[in-house]
């Protein structure tokens, strides 16, 4: 009985939240954050890497947001990983095309990577941790289903070269897929819906 009551209350809160979200159309002043696991695919190596990624995003107006991202390399789903250690930090702007609760976005974020490749059998060379310039290109979609929560799915492409490897650079470009639940908060009083 207690359980049924609990679920009924949760359902009512959920529905109320979704109904409130119908008025939620003006995204200027929105502050967003998320933390999720990311699946990466290296373009020049067979390495399905897993990252923990988070970002903080702010919308100064309806179509523009400023976002900072951070990705921590956790492990590879392959026996001989290409990376031993990697942390990527990006900061840039995204352009949004909002329509109702939906929002498609694309953006560019310059950044840095603190990377140490793993010992590769082909070169047998160990590498130091180095800071490398990087660039992230983003494409994605968010669905604002509630006043405080959203679903998102995105693809990031990272341009990254590790300089100073035995035979020149190591190309560490990576395509990363992320998705999940995000949180947002409006820092500005919302205008009433038309």
């Amino acid at each position, binding site marked *: 009985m207690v359980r049924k009551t609990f679920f009924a209350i949760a359902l009512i809160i959920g529905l109320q939240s979704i109904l409130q979200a119908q008025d939620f159309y003006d995204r200027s002043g929105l502050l967003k954050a998320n933390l999720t696991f990311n699946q990466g695919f290296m373009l020049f190596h067979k390495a399905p890497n897993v990252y923990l990624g988070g970002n903080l995003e702010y919308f100064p107006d309806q179509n523009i947001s400023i976002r900072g991202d951070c990705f921590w390399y956790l492990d590879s789903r392959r026996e001989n990983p290409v990376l031993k250690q990697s942390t990527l930090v990006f900061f840039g702007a995204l352009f949004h095309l909002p329509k109702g609760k939906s929002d498609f976005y694309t953006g560019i974020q310059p950044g840095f990577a603190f990377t140490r490749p793993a010992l590769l059998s082909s070169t047998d060379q160990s590498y130091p941790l180095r800071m490398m310039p990087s660039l992230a290109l983003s494409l994605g979609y968010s669905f604002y289903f509630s006043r405080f929560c959203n679903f998102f799915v995105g693809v990031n492409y990272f341009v990254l070269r590790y*300089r100073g490897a035995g035979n020149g650079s190591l190309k560490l470009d990576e395509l990363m897929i992320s998705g999940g639940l995000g949180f947002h908060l409006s820092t500005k009083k919302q205008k009433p819906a038309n």
Partner: protein
Amino acid sequence: MRTISNLLALLVFVSAQAQPLKQKNTPAGIFSLGARTCIGLVNDGQWQRTAFGTGGQFRIQFSDRVNTEWFADHLKADLSDYAWRADTHIGWSVMYYLTKKPQPLVRPYVLAGHCFEYLKFTDNNDGSNFAERWSASVQGGAGAQLNISPRLDLSLAAQYMLHLGTKIKPANTEGVTTFSKSEGLGIHDHILLHLSINYKIADLW
């Protein structure tokens, strides 16, 4: 308590950023903050490869058509397959807008300025084998500012940088990498292309 007050201050700040920029008098005094990605085209020798880097800048506008950019960036490149270079620039440029209209979609500009550079060449196989130097430079170029919104722009610029400093030359003979430094000062140049994103934060005066 301190955390709560910091969070409240952050909310007040970000809330202010959601409003259109309140211009006090003229565009003079507008302060913007941005990030950039750069490509360095150096023509020092057969061993030189294209450099790629990241950086940031802030801008302070002095009049309707004159803006200033204060930047720092860090670029890295291969020196053939036996060494690599790291360039760190810190400098400033004056930008002169070629159009009178303050907010057209595209606003071209010319720029000129000064910069300091720290350059380091490192052997791929031995991190303790390196050569470094500081240099001063002058730069000039042109760019275009794409005004995406009244507060945000995307700028693409190309500048020619002329450095005055000791010249470093790498060589690799029978697998041994060496770096030689020239006597006295030398002049060497490169082209720097950069794409930047800039956000207008406040009108300071």
